[in-house]
């Protein structure tokens, strides 16, 4: 048996690792990933404090996108295809799904924000105080969550 920790020949062991990773891509993984995706989407909607709730609508659309885009390698339909063709189709799929998301959700949200005079990135250079620092929240050093 090959010692999984052998670092003498990284190329060799990396190849092994990649092979095993490829084999591990199964339907089970696809299902888990999708579930995780939906859970994260729900979580993001829930954590209103970090303003992510605004994107609730967008994330509502993420589920189906993830189903189609995220596990695309796992779907048997792709396996028989030429690599280039699969890549092209993937690109078409991404553009076809994400463009409406962008145009129908993000753009109107952005326009709405601008109409209300919001400047979340502080892009406008007028009326600035003597100091441009933003105070830090204690949570910056005390939160250990991914958000």
């Amino acid at each position, binding site marked *: 048996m090959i010692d999984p920790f052998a*670092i003498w020949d990284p190329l060799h062991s990396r190849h092994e690792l990649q092979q095993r*990773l490829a084999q*591990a891509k199964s339907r089970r993984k696809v299902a*888990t990933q999708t579930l995780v995706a939906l859970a994260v989407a729900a979580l993001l909607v829930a954590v209103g404090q970090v303003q992510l709730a605004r994107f609730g609508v967008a994330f509502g659309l993420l589920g189906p996108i993830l189903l189609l885009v995220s596990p695309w390698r796992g779907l048997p339909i792709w396996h028989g295809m030429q690599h280039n063709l699969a890549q092209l189709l993937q690109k078409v799929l991404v553009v076809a799904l994400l463009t409406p998301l962008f145009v129908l959700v993000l753009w109107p949200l*952005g326009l709405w924000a601008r109409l209300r005079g919001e400047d979340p990135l502080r892009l406008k250079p007028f009326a600035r105080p003597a*100091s441009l620092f933003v105070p830090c929240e204690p949570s*910056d050093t005390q939160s*250990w969550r991914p958000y």
Partner: protein
Amino acid sequence: MKILGISCDYHDSAACLVDSGHIVAAAQEERFTRKKGDAALPAESIKFCLQQAGLRPGDRLDAVAFYDKPLLKFHRILQTQRAVAPRGLGQFLAAMPVWLRRKLWIEARLGQALDQLGILQPDQVLFPEHHLSHAASAFYPSPFEQAAILTVDGVGEWATTTLGTGNGHHIEFAQQLTYPHSLGLLYSAMSQYCGFRVNSGEYKLMGLAPYGEPRYVQAMLEHLIDVRDDGSFALNLDYFDYVGGEQMAGPKLAELLGGPPRAAEGPIERRHMHVARSVQEVAELVLLRLAKHLRATTGMRQLCLAGGVALNCVANGKLLRSGLFDDLWIQPAAGDAGGALGAALAVWHGHLGQPRQVDGVHDAMAGALLGPEFSAEEIQTYLDSRSYPYTRIADADWPQTVAQLLADQQVVALCQGRMEFGPRALGNRSIVADPRSPQMQSQMNLKIKFRESFRPFAPSVLQERAAEWFAIDRPSPYMLLVADVASERQLPLQGDESTLELTQWVNRPRSTVPAITHVDYSARMQTVSERDNPRYYALIQAFERLTGCPLVINTSFNVRGEPIVCTPDDAYRCFMRTSIDVLALGPFLLQKQQQPHWQDRENWREEFRLD
């Protein structure tokens, strides 16, 4: 208690293992996969770290720390898209699939990587903020009990600059600047304007700066960046394209700087040198004001630095000489690779509340020699299996033997001991040569590094001798401080040099050690102490005995665009592909003339994308 720190998915991924506060191992993934700046999940680095810590399949890690908060970063990207829509569709289409397929699932992917190694999942994966990881990497390993902390980089989640303090094992942030107002991104945009690659070309821009004049400083301060007295600043985004666009620099920038951006590998004009000098001065101005503000508001006498901008050793040198702080400590892996180390330490000290042990003098980085090491037996097995001829040198004779080769104008590549963590080679994966030779610089550039460089090489000098050769009064063990060559060793200018071609200009001797002296008499020096690297120290000491010169040229052991070598095999391949004369592989010496004919693919250099 074993904590694994990880940084990945942006650039230069890395892993680090901290065992009860002690840094056991740290390495960048690029060294194993041989892909420069590899951002992939660092599977090989993780494997190395676990092995170094003695973990075996079936063992359990106590915690995994990821160096930033992916969901908060995702939030910033969506907010940015919202703020700039309908612009930014291209960026959105490029970014979203990667986020949806990979970046959001970091916890699951880490779990999978550990699964593959048979390591049991830790109870929790923790996510310190990006700049907390930087701050932790700067403060916790430093020798200071308390210090001010400044982190400056491109961008983390939202923060681009943070100011804080470290006290014992507590880190507190007071103020920050947020995206898109970023000194790192300004510097990167200017690097791109000058034809250098973002995330690796910034070092070249810094190296180009001394050739130029600060002609654009006023224009930059008027139009590009609004710097306040306390060092806080805002960028004028009309001139940049990175918020929502595909490029860093926008078209208006070309108008301001009097011409189009330089094409990659195109000729370097005077204008580019002036731009480089100007942005360097602007960066120094901002950093000095930030430091002054920190000194005044915190009252601390020591300063710790990290974040990609802290790799700007010219600015660091000025900061030190400004006298604002009594002492500086800069994390050697100040970029995002060091975030892996910071994240693990943040969990140990910050989350678990474990105290630090500091002595006020020595840091906890072990000379940054935290990577893999190959024993003499392993190297011998490798050499024998390939039938490569070698001679074994006894440890006691090794310094003298190698020093004699250097004195005989041979170029020697060193692959010994543990690999360095961070972007600089510090003697264990280095190419070394005689700095006194006037031809050495161009010879090494063309035949070994395969580059036409305007940057001189760096010197490694015995720590005790540093003050005799350079205008510096303290150690610079990680090549992060630039200082002038001592005035008595400088050579006067020979007429007007401003008309020279850059390649001629760089080869004009500036001192008695020309190969390491920049056009402005500066050198980005490394001081070598017996404590951190006794073998390398002994080599330089032996070289001094032979020549009276206590320093050698030290350049990283790689060719342009290639990651620094890691294994004996990487070292041998690089040795045979270049004009390095001798390879010192642990205790073994390999002479180029004695090696069997090296058959390489014609196009081997295409393996490495030029940086």
